[in-house]
């Protein structure tokens, strides 16, 4: 049974930090799943199966959250008492918003490109690069985590959210093109 009151960092026995040792995280994750996964209780009682499923779900959720730089930032902020309503919050950075608009227009025009799939693929690489650069900026904010820096982290997260949404849309368009083949 898992102690659900532990935060995700405690669950994996890791220090609370934005910069994370990915190998160590993966190792702890596997150690926990090895004992908790429902496959270990396939022939167990109903209670064992239920508990192992709940525990395994929690471990997966914790792992996905800490592994993904965007979710990890949001989680860390929430541990610091900043809960964001990302559906309502949006960045006011005009230059960034302008760039987003351009990226969005590019995506919308993918249909008319000679190689739409290749075009989307390049665009996605570009989106991923932008996210990676924000991840670097985010790490700096969490080093000392002063109130000003946490506010800055929040702003970076809003931007990450934008890019992530765009990535989803690109994926959807790509799926549409694949199906048309």
């Amino acid at each position, binding site marked *: 049974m898992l102690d659900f009151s532990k935060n995700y960092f405690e669950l994996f026995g890791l220090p609370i930090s934005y910069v994370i040792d990915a190998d160590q995280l993966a190792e702890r994750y596997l150690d926990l799943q090895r*004992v*908790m996964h429902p496959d*270990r209780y*396939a*022939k167990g009682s109903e*209670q064992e199966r239920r508990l192992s*499923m709940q525990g395994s779900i929690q471990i*997966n*959720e914790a792992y996905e959250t800490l592994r993904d730089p965007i979710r990890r930032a949001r989680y860390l902020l929430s541990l610091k008492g900043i809960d964001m309503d990302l559906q309502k919050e949006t960045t006011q950075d005009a230059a960034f918003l302008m760039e987003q608009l351009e990226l969005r227009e590019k995506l919308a025009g993918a249909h008319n490109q000679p190689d739409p799939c290749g075009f989307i693929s390049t665009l996605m690489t570009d989106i991923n690069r932008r996210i990676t650069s924000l991840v670097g900026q985010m790490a700096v904010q969490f080093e000392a985590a002063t109130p000003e820096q946490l506010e800055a982290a929040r702003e970076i997260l809003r931007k990450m959210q934008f890019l992530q949404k765009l990535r989803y849309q690109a994926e959807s368009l790509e*799926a549409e093109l694949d199906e048309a083949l």
Partner: protein
Amino acid sequence: MALLQLSEPGQSAAPHQHRLAVGIDLGTTNSLVASARSGKAETLPDDNGRHLLSSVVRYTSDGVIVGEEAKAQAVLDPLNTIVSVKRLLGRGVEDVKTLGSRLPYQFQQQRSAVPRIHTVAGDVTPVEVSAEILKTLARRAERSLGGELEGVVITVPAYFDDAQRQATKDAARVAGLEVLRLLNEPTAAAVAYGLDHGSDGVHAIYDLGGGTFDISILRLKRGVLEVLSTGGDAALGGDDFDRVVAEWIMQQAGIDDSADHEMLRRLMRDACSAKESLTTAAVAPLLVDLGNGGFWEGELTRERFDQLVEPLVRKTLVPCRRALRDAELRVEEIEDVVLVGGSTRVPLVRELVGEFFHTRPLADIDPDRVVAIGAAVQADVLVGNKSDEEMLLLDVIPLSLGIETMGGLVEKIVPRNTTIPVARAQEFTTFKDGQTAMAIHVLQGERELVSACRSLAHFELRGIPPMVAGAARIEVTFSVDADGLLSVEAREKSSGVQASVLVKPSYGLTDSEIEGMLRDSIEHAAEDLEARRLREQQVAANRSIEALRAALADDGEKLLNKEEYQLIEDQLGKLVEVYGSSDHQAIKQQIDTLEKVCEFYVERRMNASVSKAMTGHSVKDFE
């Protein structure tokens, strides 16, 4: 120790006796059953030494015939002989229409969403047809292994959606089998290879079967097989190769589209054998019976065949590309690509796949058997024949899950390639003032538009207290279990009003329908329902007794005080007593009582195992 004084229940299995569990590859064209014995997994042959069972079921007025004998009659009796039923499994009447107007069956016209095929033995659903195949294989295994099966692992294409998985599980229930796990076919193949090669690294599994295509990218590391991404096409396979060849023959031989069922079946058969001989030969001669006493003679060259099927083979490379990207890997990082499924025997498939992955594809385990072998290995682990040190599988959901929001758009709640089991929640709110109900439409797929995704279920949350628009907080939780099956729950947070569904898709059968089918099939087998129930409860009781004894011996004295130990032991003793009776209800009751009494102990044991894992001690350190 006191424990040893308890009498062994009836003819129960000794604590370390090998439990019988098998892996079943329920294929579109052929099915197999395999079992792991003395460390080696093997497919099991029938009395004639054949391992492959043709997935063909023929209904006659005096019984059901499954396999080669049924297949032999497919051309003569097309309406009562069901082939490739897997293509219909978990599909709705509407889907079946789009699968091709050339399906040679008579579908029963009715309101039900589940297609029913009319045969001389009555109307049958794809679930029942599949159950016949499962039963045949289970009987073969029980004869060959000399005992009753405790459970089965059934493989499904990774790309199977929720409805298709549910239908597969339903088929097992109708066949009277306990499903330990539904296992994705490529993952099963990886298990078979992983054991054989024991090589850590990233592997691609390319699985082209009779009717489905799957690609999976997996990482094997220190005994954990982690699926990184998966993709595919649930309606693309070797049957499609046959179809394009058959169409080409029709064109060449001047056969028009109005050809009858029998003619179409013959053409498909001829096309299939031409395809098979082109695996090694450069030219396949054709002699087509035109049905009017005349014949058409011709030949199909490898070159022409390659031209015909190339677009289909290229179509499989699209999901390959996407799976790589989802796994965030470049093609160079893939160590090797493993070929699975009979259709990977086609030389052009090998050529194009090798070209794509920049490596010569591996096919050293028979591609027809590798899936069943992997399933057998996993069945052996799940049923408890192997120690905890064994391999662990971490699989993913193949398709994103979401719900319909305003404007016919899909809000994704669980994205594809998320590791299972998983639960994700999202909050929604009301749209109108005083709104007291909310319709929830569950969808599966990658597209943004509802109309382009697969509809899995509709349900309603009622009794929301009237509030102004936007004030209610409705939390929708999606849970996907280790079989990849979804359940959805909706709850209004301020009032606690709740509604939930185990997603029984629009195309599924109800529980009572399945019960009915099970009853029919038991009656058919002239078996006594009561006797069956008793046996089931005895098996369950035996399992509880064994598991609890092993647990007590392992850590009972460490985790329990004297009174607790005594309490559990008393209830265990009562179960052993009632085990020998013929009262299945009493047995069931005592199993439930025992489990209830043991709840705190089970929790302590799980806690202990988590602590052990986290302090880095292996189980051995505590012994």
